[in-house]
């Protein structure tokens, strides 16, 4: 057992900026994560024919699960980055509340569109599917779904505007906050800490994504209201996948600030920005915006050079992550004699899971593989690895740290059980997805053939473990809310 103060880093951890708002956000995130996982469990059980589920309801659950998980990953990531950004910047609490209010308004609209309006066009709202329901839902339901996205987008835009202007005020320019002085070898007696470098990069690329996303959302809304207005389907797909890919990536890049800020408390070694770190994050800034083309490898009408860039950047985009965050985490943890509690265990797991998740992503990013694999379970296998073992684990690690108290104690029996159940469930769950993909089982099918049921049923059993682990983490967080963070 040790105390946080033994490893205390000057200038860090002194403030608990807007901890109440952040804790509330994490309660909401934890509850929605659990609910969305239950939706996922229901869908896997229905595919395995253990329960009967109407196909229309399956696609509604699929839509809610996709939109809910992406939205909640982003919400929890935003809360984490706001919290740690607040250690280095003076952030306006009112903006965070406005962000949260708009987010919840968006959630109400989306849930209403799905479960009252019957919208089941998946979270990607791919043009022109929302307008071509075949009678499954009215245009109003699709419009409500998109207005929900718009409300969430406006909330995030306010969030990034506040963050961006505070970074600009503190560091004079976003370039300096991105570590350009470190890259160019210029003297900088106040270099940006890792959390600020990450915050500056995410602010830039996700703001661009949101602005382009708002444009395609508004154009799709016009198309819903006046069907004669056709949007160019390929352009719309490019914009939607740019927005969607950047947005979900941003959720992980926001949440990773928890790793940079919390792990040093355990290892006793401060995590500082250096030249390599700054180069990696600047590379991330470019790669995350150029890699979305790997979603369009089956669109043969795309210019070939874009598809080639999509494949190459898919390879390269893993390098900054693995070279810097994963390798640095390994070095920080190695030989540090750190005390393993739930928070540190989940945060280290999250970096490992994030790194491992990049491997199936890179494989699917190969044009020759993508032709065969892209519409199979391989793809959910890849992004569930990123999320369950990456972003969500970061969020749960942050939640465990928020209620840890001043003392770092080894994991007790319940913590160990929760961690083991979650790890076993998530690892097994994503492995089944990947095996199913390798066996060419298609994704997004409500009804499965007899030959696929074994995969679905094993996946269902693992998803029960994931839900159990999640419930333990969330209930533990709520029960310990009175304690202060480390």
């Amino acid at each position, binding site marked *: 057992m040790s105390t946080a103060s033994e490893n205390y880093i000057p200038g860090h951890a002194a403030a608990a900026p807007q901890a109440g708002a952040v804790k509330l956000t994490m309660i909401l995130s934890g509850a929605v994560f659990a609910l969305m996982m239950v939706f996922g469990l229901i869908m896997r059980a229905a595919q395995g024919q253990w329960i009967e589920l109407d196909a229309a309801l399956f696609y509604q659950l699929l839509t809610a699960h996709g939109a809910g998980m992406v939205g909640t990953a982003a919400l929890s990531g935003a809360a984490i980055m706001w919290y740690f950004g607040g250690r280095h910047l003076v952030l306006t609490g009112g903006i965070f509340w406005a962000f949260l209010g708009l987010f919840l308004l968006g959630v109400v609209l989306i849930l209403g569109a799905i479960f009252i309006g019957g919208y089941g066009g998946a979270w990607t709202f791919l043009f022109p599917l929302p307008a071509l329901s075949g009678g499954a839902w009215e245009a109003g339901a699709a419009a409500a779904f998109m207005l929900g996205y718009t409300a969430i987008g406006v909330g995030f835009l306010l969030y990034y505007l506040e963050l961006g202007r505070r970074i*600009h*005020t503190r560091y*004079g320019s*976003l*370039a300096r906050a991105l570590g350009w002085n470190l890259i160019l070898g*210029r003297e900088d007696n106040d270099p940006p800490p890792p959390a600020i470098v990450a915050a500056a990069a995410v602010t830039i690329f996700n703001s661009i994504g949101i602005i*382009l996303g708002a444009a395609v959302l508004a*154009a799709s809304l016009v198309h819903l209201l006046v069907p004669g207005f056709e949007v160019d389907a390929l352009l719309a797909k490019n914009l939607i996948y740019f927005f969607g890919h950047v947005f979900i990536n941003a959720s992980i890049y926001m949440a990773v600030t928890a790793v940079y800020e919390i792990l040093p408390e355990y290892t006793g070694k401060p995590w500082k920005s250096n030249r390599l770190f700054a180069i990696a994050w600047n590379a991330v800034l470019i790669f995350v915006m150029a890699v979305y083309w790997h979603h369009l490898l089956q669109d043969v009408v795309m210019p070939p050079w874009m598809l080639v860039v999509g494949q190459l950047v898919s390879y390269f985009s893993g390098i900054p992550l693995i070279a810097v965050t994963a390798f640095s985490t390994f070095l920080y943890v190695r030989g540090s004699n750190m005390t393993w509690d739930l928070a540190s265990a989940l945060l280290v797991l999250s970096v490992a899971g994030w790194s491992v998740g990049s491997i199936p992503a890179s494989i699917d990013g190969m044009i020759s593989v993508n032709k065969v694999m892209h519409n199979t379970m391989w793809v959910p296998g890849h992004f569930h690895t990123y999320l369950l073992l990456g972003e969500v684990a970061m969020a749960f690690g942050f939640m465990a740290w928020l209620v840890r108290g001043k003392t770092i104690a080894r994991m007790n029996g319940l913590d160990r059980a929760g961690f083991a159940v979650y790890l076993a469930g998530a690892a097994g769950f994503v492995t089944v997805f990947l095996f199913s993909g390798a066996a060419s089982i298609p994704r997004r099918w409500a009804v499965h053939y007899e030959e696929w049921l074994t995969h679905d049923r094993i996946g269902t059993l693992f998803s029960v473990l994931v839900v159990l682990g999640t419930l333990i983490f969330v209930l533990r967080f709520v029960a310990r809310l009175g304690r202060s963070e480390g």
Partner: protein
Amino acid sequence: MRMICLGLLAMAEAVALREAAAASPVQHVLVQMPLLVLAGVLLGWNLRVRRDWAVPLLLTALTAFLFWMLPRSVDWALTPAGEAAKNLSLPLLLGVPLRLSWPWLGPVLRGFLKANALSMLGVLGFLYTHAPVRICNSYLVSAQQELGFAFLYLAAALACLWAIPVLFGHPKCGSFGTAGCSRCGV
């Protein structure tokens, strides 16, 4: 006085573009109309209002802006009555209120308005390039598509114009200095 003269000059320039506006929607929507707004901004340059007027003035400006964004309004602006309404309302109901309210708007709201302008220019680009019909009866479909692309080019130009100072700092601040920038409020 100098600003008033410049405002009147912009106004005169806009009125002089009357025939060019009738010939091309790009010159109408992206040259003449912005000149009229600029005239209003310059005319109101030295005026000051109380803080509690900021929101009503901003709403007035946004309402006028929304009205003149409609393709139907662009058509109407080529008729004698519409032209008079355009020449009066764009400076007085958009340019002047925008100028008067702007100093009172917080940086987040200003950023939001700019980001929204970029998104809406993208949407207009979508609409004008893909509309299956002539949106404005006064212009050809080919001219309408030119306007759509012009909206997209303008969005890209404004994005660069607004993003570069934020990314690289104000030129007066030096290159990524460590002492921060008094101009930027550090």
